[in-house]
């Protein structure tokens, strides 16, 4: 009796496994790992929406290789622990590739799991450490911190001629990496960094650190962290009567920055790759139009578009290699040259780094629009 039961159990398991694999053959699963709730929710939701939009468009044309694409989303809240759980969940769901996550910290926490299971991953995380392992599964769809740091340093020292520079970051791997790289690049150009401090993200009260900075009398305060702290920092800086310029790194480029800073937003400088609305490419204009038509608003920021380019490159790889073998697709992507992306040509280096891409400095105007001041 026992043995028979066991037999029955094994056969049930075997059939269900067979059914699962049959199902897997019918669709191609694409994972989304993004902060759909939490501090960075508006970026995470935008990425999730963007991926679903592109997948719907592919499916309307019959999918890829004659198979429908299915999206499996997982919310990592921008937290490393949750990211590790998401990685397992998406691997178990049998995804071919994962889009995300938004923050470098959450991306890094999930990276190794995807690598071990041969799942492709494409993220907008800009931390230099993401390509350090040279995982064949990882493709960065944005540009690394080091490129932004050099641009920022050049702008500060050679263009603005700031004499005293204060550098602030939060404790995330991305923001500390960017701030340290920027401070180093400034020193290489013989600039003068008089202060390097850190704030704890989400504490809201930054007056103590800002008062300290005030006593040092800098020409500029550079903040490499995220918009939810950046907007408050700017508001409190103006409130405390600190005359220095405020320059935010790429992650401050978000509508919430303007809302939090309120009337103080005017005159802030932001450094980022081109914003969605000034991208010159036709596919970019089409994507923005489709996104607006479907969701009634614009994508949160350029990060959504960068991730979408990651997704498009992966799907292009599937089409070109006529295979769902991730190793084959990866080899193809490593040699990818000049694939027309929404954010410009997509080229990957052998360590998964995206090459090319120019940064710009914007000045925020009275109506919260951007004026390009340096590129």
């Amino acid at each position: 009796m026992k043995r028979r039961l066991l037999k029955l159990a094994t056969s049930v398991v075997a059939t269900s496994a067979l059914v699962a694999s049959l199902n897997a053959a019918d669709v191609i699963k694409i994972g989304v790992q993004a902060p759909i709730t939490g501090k960075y929710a508006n970026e995470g939701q935008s990425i999730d929406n963007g991926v679903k939009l592109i997948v719907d468009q592919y499916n309307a044309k019959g999918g890829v290789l004659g198979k429908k694409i299915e999206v499996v989303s997982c919310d990592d809240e921008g937290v490393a622990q949750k990211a590790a759980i998401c990685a397992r969940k998406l691997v178990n769901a049998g995804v071919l590739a994962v889009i995300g996550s938004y923050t470098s910290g959450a991306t890094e926490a999930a990276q190794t799991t995807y690598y071990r299971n041969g799942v492709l991953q494409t993220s907008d995380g800009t931390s230099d450490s993401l390509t350090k392992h040279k995982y064949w599964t990882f493709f960065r769809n944005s540009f690394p911190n080091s490129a932004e740091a050099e641009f920022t340093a050049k702008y500060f020292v050679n263009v603005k001629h700031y004499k005293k520079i204060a550098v602030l970051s939060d404790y995330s791997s991305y923001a500390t990496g960017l701030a340290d790289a920027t401070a180093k690049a400034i020193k290489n150009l013989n600039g003068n960094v008089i202060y390097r401090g850190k704030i704890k993200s989400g504490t809201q009260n930054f007056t103590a650190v800002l008062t300290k900075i005030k006593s040092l009398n800098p020409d500029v305060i550079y903040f490499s962290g995220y918009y939810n702290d950046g907007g408050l920092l700017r508001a409190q800086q103006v409130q405390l009567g600190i005359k220095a310029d405020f320059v935010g790194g790429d992650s401050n480029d978000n509508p919430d920055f303007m809302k939090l800073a309120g009337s103080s937003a005017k005159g802030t400088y932001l450094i980022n790759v081109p914003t969605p609305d000034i991208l010159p490419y036709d596919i970019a204009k089409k994507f923005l139009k489709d996104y607006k038509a479907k969701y009634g608003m614009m994508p949160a920021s350029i990060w959504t578009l960068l991730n979408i380019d990651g997704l498009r490159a992966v799907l292009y790889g599937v089409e070109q290699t006529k295979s769902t073998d991730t190793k084959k697709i990866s080899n193809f992507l490593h040699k990818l040259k000049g694939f027309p992306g929404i954010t410009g040509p997509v080229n990957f280096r052998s360590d998964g780094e995206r090459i090319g891409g120019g940064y710009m400095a914007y000045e925020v105007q009275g109506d919260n629009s951007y004026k390009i001041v340096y590129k």
Partner: protein
Amino acid sequence: MDIFLQQLINGLTVGSLYALVALGYTMVYGVMKLINFAHGDLVALSAFAGLTIYVEIFGEGTNSLFIVLSVFVITALIIAFVGVLLERLAYRPLRTAPRLSAVVSALGASLVIQNSIMLIWGPNMKIFPSNLFPSTIWNLNGVVFTFTQVMIMGISALLMVGLYIFINKTKMGTAIRATAIDQDAAKLMGINVNRVIMTIFIIGSALGAVAGLFIGINYRGITFDMGWTYGLNAFVAAIMGGIGNIPGAMLGGILLGLFNAMISGYISSEWAETFTFVLLVVILIFRPTGILGETIAEKV
């Protein structure tokens, strides 16, 4: 000198907020020997409720003394009601159960409130309008303070003095103190313990509601999970001052704000949190019951 005075004001502002929240922890602990972990989330809830009341009832862009006052009063009433509900549902059934069960219930209640906020208002950051208080800024020889900061410090001080008088000079206050010393004996003396506990939840939650609104007005960005940060700091403040002791919670809150400001101003912003907790440990080594916490009989 102006930098020192500025840090003093920075510290006092955030310290007053911690103190207001800490009072809720300390009063509940004093009477029920229970750490009400859901208190921080009530603070977050009040910020969201206040924003909704302002936008829905009065409409964005309007402002007058009457409107601001009504927002504060209505929000405080709502949060006080939620506080009483919380006690009824999560704590009263467990009053005779082991303390650990009540703590678990408190943590559960905290998650329920936090997730309810997320489900009702969504996971995105909500932003308070900037015109609720006049944006007046005074500058005295380089020391800057805003109208909002003055209101935070002034109203917090007023509320704390009022609470102190209430606890020490009124009949209800005496009943609260008696219940804190010995619940059973208080019952034998004819004190309605349930009413006492309801009263402390009403007062504690209403003070938390005022703090929540001030946080929204001063820092503007509110998130569903912000209760945890303020709750933790206020909890530390309550312990520092001597948990269960009302003047202790006020002192603890103010001191915590000042420590934080002075350490990040004069030592290092990166080490501010670490040093604050080192200080907490040092205080507890020399005064295990907190700065003002002395004997059990003194606790309220």
